[in-house]
């Protein structure tokens, strides 16, 4: 059952006062807050079973390893991966994508092509730029139409014999556009090209089933789904991961080491060099259980209502430009500008009302520049936000606009 009062009580930070005012947190695309069960889990881990995993043969190490592996299974079930071997713990979505870029690189030669979209976060652009500088690979961009949606006809035309990977964002962190990844994956597979999905902005809003999607890789961050910072996931099909070389070398990822050579450990450990963020993983498991108790479908329904409510109210403000896809293809992140008022000025003053939003290019500079802006104001929602908060945001925004007239 979706009980908003109970949910809000689960997130202690929502009771904080900002300049003496109630916090209205609409920066959820940047990071989400943590429910008490997640905060308690972090304390519990350090209070009850902290010990390094996978190598100690003592009691606490055994417990800690169990908790870490249980978290892996929770993630596996949540995204419906075939095996927990397909779940690699990383620092976050950024590291997950970098892992693929680095380890997949051995299959790439000069002039090979990777397809990304016009709405990628810098985390799904810069790793490929590095490969482009170091190996001479080429990037191809799926263009966006005037409706802030990807142009799939153009997408089909981008494939050549040199196309080796498609790497696209599921939900745009800037526009909230939900991209048709099912079609993108089908198209790419029909040309025998694997697909990486950046799910950093979708894992917390929509049900993700990697088997149904049939994606080859999927990346997300724990902190965007109510877990601790510094933990993330790379899902990879076992067959893909087995072909790939490790991303980093070190402890925990080996079977046998001599002075001159290393035999790598099996999946998933091959990709987890060094001491893993086991407390972060434990917190991610707890966060996912929390989300599952409420039901991701319930969360999505409510967040969609919040988005459309805010969209309708916002669109009635004079001089507003909203950058959003058609109604059925948008959720969670709402970007706009007000004619004649700089986005930074709006953000600075909304902050004084206790409202946290983000301004600027949101790590999608090429995207924002492509529709002729130097930045936008972005409000992004989570299921603990209320319609009253959106009313207050709209009223405050109107006051702010008045100040700059």
């Amino acid at each position, binding site marked *: 059952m979706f009980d908003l009062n109970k949910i809000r009580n689960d997130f202690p930070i929502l009771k904080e006062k900002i*300049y003496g005012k109630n916090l209205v947190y609409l920066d959820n695309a940047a990071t989400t807050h943590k429910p008490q069960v997640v905060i308690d889990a972090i304390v519990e881990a350090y209070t009850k079973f902290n010990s390094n995993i996978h190598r100690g043969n003592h009691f606490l190490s055994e417990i800690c390893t169990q908790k870490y592996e249980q978290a892996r299974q929770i993630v596996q079930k949540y995204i419906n991966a075939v095996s927990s071997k397909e779940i690699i713990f990383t620092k976050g979505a950024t590291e997950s994508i970098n892992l693929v870029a680095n380890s997949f690189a051995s299959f790439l030669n000069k002039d090979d092509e990777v397809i990304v979209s016009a709405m990628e976060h810098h985390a799904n652009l810069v790793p490929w730029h590095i490969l482009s500088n170091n190996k001479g690979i080429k990037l191809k961009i799926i263009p966006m139409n005037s409706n802030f949606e990807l142009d799939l006809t153009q997408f089909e035309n981008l494939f050549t014999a040199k196309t080796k990977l498609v790497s696209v964002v599921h939900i745009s962190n800037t526009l909230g556009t939900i991209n048709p990844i099912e079609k993108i994956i089908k198209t790419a597979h029909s040309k025998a090209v694997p697909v990486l999905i950046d799910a950093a902005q979708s894992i917390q809003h929509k049900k993700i089933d990697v088997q149904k999607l049939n994606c080859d890789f999927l990346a997300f961050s724990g902190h965007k789904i109510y877990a601790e910072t510094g933990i993330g996931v790379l899902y990879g099909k076992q067959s893909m991961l087995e072909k790939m070389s490790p991303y980093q070398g070190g402890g925990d990822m080996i079977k046998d080491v001599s002075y001159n050579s290393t035999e790598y450990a099996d999946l998933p450990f091959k990709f987890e060099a060094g001491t893993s963020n086991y407390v972060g993983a434990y917190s991610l498991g707890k966060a996912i259980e929390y989300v599952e108790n409420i039901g991701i479908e319930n969360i999505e329904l409510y967040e969609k209502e919040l988005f459309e409510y805010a969209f309708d109210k916002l669109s009635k403000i004079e001089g507003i430009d909203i950058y959003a896809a058609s109604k059925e293809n948008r959720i969670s992140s709402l970007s706009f500008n007000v004619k004649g*008022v*700089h*986005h*930074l*000025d709006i953000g*600075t*003053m909304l*902050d*004084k009302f206790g409202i946290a939003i983000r*301004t*600027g290019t949101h790590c999608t500079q090429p995207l924002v520049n492509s529709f002729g802006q*130097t*930045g936008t104001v972005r409000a992004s929602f989570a299921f603990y936000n209320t319609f009253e908060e959106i009313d207050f945001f709209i009223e405050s925004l109107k006051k702010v606009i008045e*100040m*700059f007239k």
Partner: protein
Amino acid sequence: MNTIEEIQNQIIEEFSMFDDWMNKYEYLIDLGKNLEPLKDGLKKDDFLIKGCQSRVWLVPKFENGRLFLSADSDAIITKGLASLIIRIFDDKTPEEIMNADVFFVEQIGLSQNLSPTRANGLASMIQSIKHYAEAFKTKN
């Protein structure tokens, strides 16, 4: 002619007349609106301060051993801050600027909000002015 220290003290006193943040911001916004815009020809990349969320142009001119400043920004609050910075550093010698201690930010009661972050460009403006002063001094 007031010193850099004296002007900062004047600014602190002006801001102390407003007890409410909102009024302080309204004052800053007014300062921004009243700052004479740069001519378009001067809004060029040479004068653009990088790394700010708003675009800030800061134009130095040296005459008779003194630095004269004009500035503009596409964000009004940043422009208000630029107008304070110009008031403090305009028509000063490179030595005065290089040795200046900038303390008004903490004392106008907005430091929590106006802490020299990247976003509002305040720190970059001060840094650029000090660089201009240093470059001028080395050249002459």
